[in-house]
């Protein structure tokens, strides 16, 4: 049929488009001669670092393709365990059960904290831990009760796959209840933009993600910042991990090594985290 074959040139063009590879080379030496695809998914706190590292590597060596997806720590661990991705990130340490089941290798490359955040317009910028527990449990539900405006408190939380949620729930709320009134968002980035939008919201994000669009809330007098996390004053701290199934090889290994290189550490720092060692 003549009518149908018109699609053919389009198809050919698109296959060419997909097949042609850009050709020029650059500097990041260890990636010289490598090629292929690297799939990364999982923890959303990691994304800015992953994106920047991937960008540098792909600029230097166009034969390498790196794709980055979110999903949360649970997804990262699960997907790398199943072999769907090469690197699964998590914002919590994988459990012994998970490590055993998938033969995971853990690589902690940064220290991070999880801090409560509110909109910069909100006058309430300090809470006690008990106040915060009450807020998230739904017992305190108006900013007026905390010295703010007479408006309901809008609580934002993360989905069940989130490592940020797991850490905040364990260390920040002492495994207390989170009200079912809470809005659910799917990533650190989404949490930040939700709080930046909502003057009456409260949520929690990776300390590395805190910028001028949201205001950190001091907890028992300690403001969650990179410094307070580093010197141990701020208690809700955690590591950022990249996990692989078994010992990493090839491109995967080089990518993880890059995170520990001076260039990698610089990226980690610039994104607001504390590189390990």
């Amino acid at each position, binding site marked *: 049929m003549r009518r149908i074959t018109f699609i053919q040139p389009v198809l050919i063009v698109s296959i060419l488009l997909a097949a042609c590879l850009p050709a020029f080379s650059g500097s990041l030496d260890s990636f010289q001669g490598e090629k292929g695809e690297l799939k990364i998914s999982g923890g959303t706190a990691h994304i800015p670092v992953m994106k920047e590292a991937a960008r540098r590597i792909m600029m230097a060596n166009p034969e390498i393709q790196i794709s980055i997806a979110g999903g949360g720590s649970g997804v990262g661990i699960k997907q790398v365990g199943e072999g769907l991705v090469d690197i699964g990130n998590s914002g919590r340490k994988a459990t012994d059960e998970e490590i055993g089941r998938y033969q995971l290798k853990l690589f902690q490359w940064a220290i991070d904290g999880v801090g409560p955040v509110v909109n910069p317009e909100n006058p309430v910028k300090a809470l006690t831990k008990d106040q915060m527990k009450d807020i998230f449990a739904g017992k305190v539900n108006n900013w007026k009760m905390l010295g703010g405006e007479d408006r309901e408190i809008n609580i934002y939380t993360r*989905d*069940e796959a989130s490592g940020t949620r797991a850490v905040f729930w364990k260390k920040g709320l002492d495994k207390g209840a989170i009200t079912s009134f809470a*809005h*659910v968002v799917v990533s650190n980035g989404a949490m930040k933009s939700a709080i930046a939008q909502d003057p*009456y919201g409260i949520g929690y994000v990776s300390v590395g993600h805190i910028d001028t669009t949201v205001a950190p809330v001091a907890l028992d007098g300690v403001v969650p910042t990179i410094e307070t996390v580093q010197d141990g004053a701020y208690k809700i701290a955690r590591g950022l991990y990249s996990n692989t199934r078994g010992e990493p090889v090839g491109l995967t290994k080089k990518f993880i090594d890059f995170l520990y290189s001076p260039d990698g550490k610089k990226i980690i720092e610039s994104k607001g985290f504390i590189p390990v060692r």
Partner: protein
Amino acid sequence: MKKIGELVAERTFLLSALASSSITVAILAFMVFMGLPLMKQAGFYQLLVKPWAPYQGSFGIYPMIVGTGCISFLSLVVAFPLSLGCSFLIATIAPKPVSKGLRRLIELMTGIPTVIYGFVGIFLLVPYIRELFRSGSGLCVLTAALVLGIMITPTMTLFFCDSFDRIPRSYLTAAEALGASRTQKLLYVILPCAKKGMLNGVILALGRAVGDTLVALMLAGNSVRVPGSVLEPARTLTAHIALVIAADYESPEFRSIFACGVVLYLFTMMVTFLVRYLSFAEGRRD
């Protein structure tokens, strides 16, 4: 030689028809198969009426069913009068060129991507609703329903117009000959004749509203509880699938989204057969 060609062609057509139609069956089979462990363990009916509390081991999808119901019903409340009015305009009330232009425009509107409604909704409507009612975050049932209502209005309007178009010309001529004005023709001839077709339109639009993912996911707040008022956040079945898809593949959380899938599937089937039944009844009457 030619005979064989004919036969091969017919078989090819038949095979592709069977392959295409088997997709419908395969989807249901997959949903049931994947969701079976949880449905067996908890009971399908129990899943439908229990709350969602993963830490207590309860993976019921009742809040999502209620959330879906509230949002889609409310969006119908928004869309129905709008569609009714617009279809009146197009059918008789507006002058010819206006009605033609309006129809083209509304057809064009059906092509606006869903994600754009959601995107603009977040930055335009959410803050407005929050400040208007001075309550909640603005991510709520009402916001989602308003945007969804605007989104399904063009579709519903076109369904209405189609059912108006199907009325035999002779009825209209008869009414005109008796001196009916345009509005009278609409109220006393067109509307009574098109009732069933319009019901079809409403049901199909409801199907659209229930099946939409992005608007509710972006605008309804996604909290997992039965909303107490339209200003509270809620989660739909579709948004639940999009949110929980990330969970561990063997976990009951993950299994529960297949229960959502089955519910959505059964709902689609119900809508389809209802519409087919109504169209059949309409066809018989003529």
